[in-house]
């Protein structure tokens, strides 16, 4: 019990100090800062800690692959063979050597354009329909069972129907992207809207926000984390679907390239295309996740 007394005595002295003239000189304390080369070493160390492990793992896997596929009679090419045979595809993604002989970068861009249109439409329709289903009990009762059945249908099963309807491969591929990615967006948006806390609705009611203001100022920000979960699943699914759709519809995309390579027995090219698809898919996912983390800053924190 002596502690508080002692503390107040000390603080009393501190408060009393300024009343008497201060004679002491003010000595600037040397700011302790690490030398530049140490700091650089620290940041370098951090980067190395994140970069080195995956690089080591990739090298390890490539070695295993090389060892397994080097035997005579191996059905798949080893990495060394892929490197020599598909060298032009690896080093230059944007070469143009003829109407059908172009770099994989171009092909990926064509596929991305289809995904952008299909996914963009899915995002708009998905959020709009999800809002309707989340907000209206009757819309949910009517539409939710239909959505739950339709969403289980494989993207490729839609392809014949869309080909019959559009009579052209380009809109058909876009439709397949749309129909694949729209369901998770609808369902997650609806859950997000349904989970808007009653408090926020009360605030909106007291302020007499009109439906449009309510949508923009309460619904969308409040449901944003859910909506972005849906958008993130959606972009993954649409990237999965585009490859399959392009394999069947033809054209210039990365999916058709794989099919074409298979038909002309260029196995090394397929591996390169796979690497492209994986990396692009990863980047797409990171982009949506990045946008999500910026947009949902406040909501996620609470």
């Amino acid at each position: 019990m002596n502690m508080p007394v002692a503390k107040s005595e000390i603080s009393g002295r501190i408060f009393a100090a300024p009343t008497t003239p201060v004679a002491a000189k003010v000595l600037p304390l040397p700011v302790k800062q690490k030398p530049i080369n140490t700091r650089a070493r620290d940041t370098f160390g951090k980067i190395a800690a994140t970069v080195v492990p995956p690089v080591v793992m990739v090298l390890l896997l490539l070695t295993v692959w090389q060892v397994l596929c080097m035997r005579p009679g191996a059905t798949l090419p080893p990495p060394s063979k892929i490197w020599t045979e598909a060298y032009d595809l690896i080093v230059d993604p944007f070469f143009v050597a003829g109407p059908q002989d172009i770099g994989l970068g171009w092909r990926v861009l064509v596929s991305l354009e289809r995904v952008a249109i299909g996914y963009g439409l899915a995002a708009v329709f998905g959020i709009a329909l999800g809002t309707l289903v989340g907000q209206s009990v009757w819309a949910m009762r009517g539409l939710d069972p239909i959505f739950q059945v339709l969403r289980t249908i494989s993207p490729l099963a839609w392809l014949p129907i869309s080909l019959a309807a559009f009579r052209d491969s380009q809109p058909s591929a876009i439709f397949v992207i749309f129909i694949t990615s729209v369901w998770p967006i609808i369902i997650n948006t609806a859950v997000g809207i349904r989970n808007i806390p009653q408090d926020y609705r009360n605030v909106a009611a007291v302020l007499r926000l009109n439906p449009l203001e309510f949508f923009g100022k309460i619904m969308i920000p409040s449901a944003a984390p859910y909506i972005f979960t849906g958008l993130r699943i959606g972009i993954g699914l649409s990237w999965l679907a585009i490859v399959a759709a392009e394999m069947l519809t033809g054209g210039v995309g990365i999916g058709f390239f794989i099919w074409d390579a298979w038909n002309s027995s260029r196995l090394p090219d397929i591996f390169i295309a796979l690497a492209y698809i994986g990396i692009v898919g990863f980047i797409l996912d990171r982009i949506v996740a990045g946008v999500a983390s910026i947009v949902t800053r406040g909501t996620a924190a609470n």
Partner: protein
Amino acid sequence: MTAYCRISHVDKVYKRGSTETCVLKEITLDIEKGEYVSIIGHSGCGKSTLLNIVAGLTPATNGGVILEGREVNDPGPDRAVVFQNHSLLPWLTVYDNVKLAVDKVCSATKSRAERHAWTIHNLDLVQMTHAKDKRPSEISGGMKQRVGLARALAMEPKILLLDEPFGALDALTRAHLQDTVMGLHQKLGNTVMMITHDVDEAVLLSDRIIMMTNGPSAQIGEILPVPLARPRKRLELVADATFLKCRQRVLEFLYERHQFVEAA
């Protein structure tokens, strides 16, 4: 003569399937302009339901509320509510939370610059200007409640509805906020209706204390005027005879005559 705010023969019955639960029965209460009224009762007695009926968030089954000669049918900014759990929008800054209300309520009467000034003015009133660019998740519970209060005050309500505004706060913060509310009531002359379950708080802040009987079918059991002069000082009142007498009356009502029954 009609009162400023008249709650008239209000019943509230909740129906779930075939079972009917009568929450409030025959509530009639007049509130004068500038008056500070507290409603106290055990939990589950329908205090919050009554406040929501005045706010327009819940419709009354029978009877109604008339505020300044107009019937209450829906929620509106003339009956601003400070909610128990602050209800700030987490994606907006403190400033933007208040500004949202200001923009909506004052869009016709104030220019852009005036709305900004009004927002800052109301944040000043609750001493929260220093945190105006913070998000609700970055400030304490008491600060959130201050911002909630600023948002409600910014609407310039005819009646300010406080739904257990200090319920979720620790005792020291609560006392501090009570003083703030008391000061603002003194300064702005708002009409206030406050729900509380804290006897000291009710006596300290109110002009009248409405004591509710236990539900179901809760009624107004007793109305106690608090004849203490304002401004009131917390420390001086601790030993004040009138304060203690009022406190005792409320305690007697709550714990002797209408003891909380768990089964109710």
